[in-house]
C-alpha cells in the first residue's frame, strides 16, 4: 500500500487545512506569484504573504540586505502595496492556486490591526498572521511584540474583527518568550508562529559605516536556527494552541528538528531566496524521513524530543 503526500504530510493548523506542514515565511516569498515559475504553489502547505499594511509603504532607504555568516540581515521596512491593492489585484490572481493564503498584517495602532483584519475577512483568505515583531519599522511592529499587554490588546482587537483563524508571530527579541506566548494565547490567538528575525547589525570596516541603510536589521538564516528551535521548544510546552516553527530552515532535517521541538507546522524563510523550491524540497524530504523511520504521519513527530 502506498501512502500519498497529503495522507502523510497533511495537517490542519487552527482550522487551516494544509497539504504539507511546510509554509512559506512572510517576507521571503513575496505574494507567492513571484515564485510560480519555480515552484508548484499547489504543493506548498500555505503561502504567508508579504507583511501588508493599511496604506502602501515604500520601505526603508539605502542598502536593505547584508550577508552574514550563515545568514543575512534585512531592513526592508515593510514595503508593500497596501491592503486595497492586495485585495483588488493580488488576491484574485492567487485564486488560481489550490493553496491556503495567509495574510501577514502590520499596523501602527491597535485599531489599524483591527481594521486590517476586518478588511481581510473574505472567503479567499485562509487566515491572518499578526506581525507584532518586525524589527525594521519605527512604529507598530515589534513595539507590540515586546510587551505582553500591548500584544494582548492587538490580538483581542483582531479577534473581534474577523472570523478567520488568527496566528500571532512572535519576536525573539524579548526576555521571556513564554510569557509573550501565554499572553497572546490568553487573548485568543488560534496559533503562534515563531521566530521573527533577531535584531542585528553589520559594520563596513573600510567605510566605518553600518552596512544597512537603516543601521540595524533582522537576522535570519541558518545562523538563527538553534535559537528558534529552543524558543519553539519552550513555547510549545507552555501553550495549547499549535505552534508554527521557523528560523533558518533550509533542509527537511531542519524542519524535523522543529517538529520534534513541538511545532505542528513549519515555515521556510531565507531558504526561499537560495532555492525557490525550498518549501517543496523540505516537504519531500520530510516524507522520505517518515518512510525511513516507518512512521505514517508527520504529526507523530510533534514534540517528541526526549529530554
Amino acid at each position, binding site marked *: 500500500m502506498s501512502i500519498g503526500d497529503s495522507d502523510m504530510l497533511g495537517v490542519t493548523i487552527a482550522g487551516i487545512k494544509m497539504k504539507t506542514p511546510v509554509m512559506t515565511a512572510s*517576507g521571503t516569498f513575496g505574494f507567492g506569484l*513571484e515564485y510560480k515559475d*519555480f515552484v508548484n504553489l499547489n504543493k506548498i502547505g500555505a503561502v504567508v504573504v508579504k507583511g501588508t499594511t493599511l496604506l502602501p509603504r515604500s520601505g526603508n532607504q539605502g542598502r536593505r540586505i547584508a550577508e552574514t555568516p*550563515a545568514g543575512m540581515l534585512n531592513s526592508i521596512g515593510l*514595503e508593500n502595496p497596501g491592503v486595497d491593492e492586495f485585495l483588488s489585484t493580488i488576491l484574485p490572481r492567487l485564486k488560481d492556486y489550490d493553496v491556503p493564503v495567509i495574510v501577514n498584517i502590520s499596523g501602527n495602532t491597535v485599531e489599524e490591526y483591527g481594521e486590517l483584519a476586518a478588511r481581510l475577512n473574505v472567503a479567499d483568505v485562509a487566515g491572518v498572521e499578526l506581525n507584532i515583531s518586525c524589527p525594521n519599522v519605527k512604529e507598530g511592529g515589534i513595539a507590540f511584540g515586546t510587551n505582553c499587554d500591548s500584544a494582548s490588546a492587538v490580538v483581542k482587537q483582531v479577534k473581534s474583527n474577523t472570523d478567520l483563524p488568527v496566528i500571532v508571530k512572535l519576536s525573539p527579541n524579548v526576555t521571556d518568550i513564554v510569557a509573550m506566548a501565554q499572553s497572546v494565547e490568553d487573548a485568543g490567538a488560534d496559533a503562534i508562529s515563531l521566530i521573527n528575525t533577531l535584531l542585528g547589525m553589520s559594520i563596513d570596516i573600510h567605510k566605518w559605516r553600518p552596512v544597512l541603510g537603516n543601521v540595524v536589521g533582522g537576522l535570519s*538564516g541558518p545562523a538563527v536556527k538553534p535559537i528558534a528551535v529552543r524558543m519553539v521548544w519552550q513555547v510549545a510546552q507552555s501553550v495549547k494552541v499549535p505552534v508554527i516553527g521557523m528560523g533558518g530552515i533550509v533542509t527537511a532535517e531542519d524542519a524535523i528538528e522543529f517538529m520534534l521541538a513541538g511545532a505542528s507546522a513549519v515555515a521556510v524563510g*531565507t531558504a526561499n*531566496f537560495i532555492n525557490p523550491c525550498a518549501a517543496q524540497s523540505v516537504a519531500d524530504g520530510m516524507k522520505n524521513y517518515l518512510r525511513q523511520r516507518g512512521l505514517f504521519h508527520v504529526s507523530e513527530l510533534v514534540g517528541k524530543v526526549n529530554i
Partner: protein
Amino acid sequence: MPKMVVEARIVRNTEIGVNVKELVLYAPEIAVQAVPGQFLHVRVADSYYPLLRRPLSISGADHITGTVSTIYRVVGQGTACLAALTSKDSVDCMGPLGNGFVIHGQRPLLVGGGMGLAPLLFLAGALCPRPIEILMGGRTKEEMFWADMFHNKCDAIHITTDDGTLGSCGVTLDLLPEVLKSGAFDVIYTCGPRIMMEGVAKVAKTYNIPCQISLEEYMACGIGGCLSCTCAGKDGLRKKVCTDGPVFWAQEVMS
C-alpha cells in the same frame, strides 16, 4: 518559456583582466532565452557562507553551443568563491532573470563604465547590423581590455581613463557631449556606476535622445520576492530592479 534553475557545467572560467574573469557556462535552456540586459543568479558555493546567490550580468549567449557567459570582478567573498571554480565544476544557476534592453532606433550609442560594460557587450552583438559607437571609461589603461572585446562589434570606440593612460583623460561624462555632437544618435544604452548613469541620463534628456539604463542593486531572491532591490519609480510606484528592471528607460527611475 519559464525562467529556470539549472545545474550548469563550467566550460571555462578565465582571467581576462586584472582581477576580472569571464565565466562561460553550459546552460542551453538559459542560452536560448537570454537577451542582453538580463542576468544570472548564481550559487557560488554549496555553503552557508556565502549563503546568498550572486546576480551576474549576462555578457553573451550562444544558443548553438548552448553557452551563456558573464564577466565579473573579484571583489568579495562570493566572487572569490566563483573565481576558484574550474571546468571540472558546475554551479547552480537561475536565469535568465529580469528584463533586458529594448532594441530601439537605428543609431545606438553605448556608454559603459567598469563591469557595466559586460551587458553592453551582449547588447552590441544584438544591435548588429546597426552602426554602433561606444563610449567606455575606466580608471586606467589596464582596465581597458574591454576595447579589444568590443573591437569587432563597434564602428567607433571612444575611451576615457581617469589617469589618461589610454584615450582621453577624465571620465565618460566629460567626453559624452563631444561624442553626441559627432553622430546623429537616436538611442543611448548605459550601464556602469550609478553616478555615471545619472549623468548620462541627464545629458540624453538635454539632447532629447531616449536612454535606457541598467541598474545594479543588492538583491537576495532575484525574482521579486524579497524587495531588497526596489527603487522609487517616477510614476510614484516602487520598481523592483530584479523583475521590473534591471533595464529601465531613464525617465522611469531618474529625473
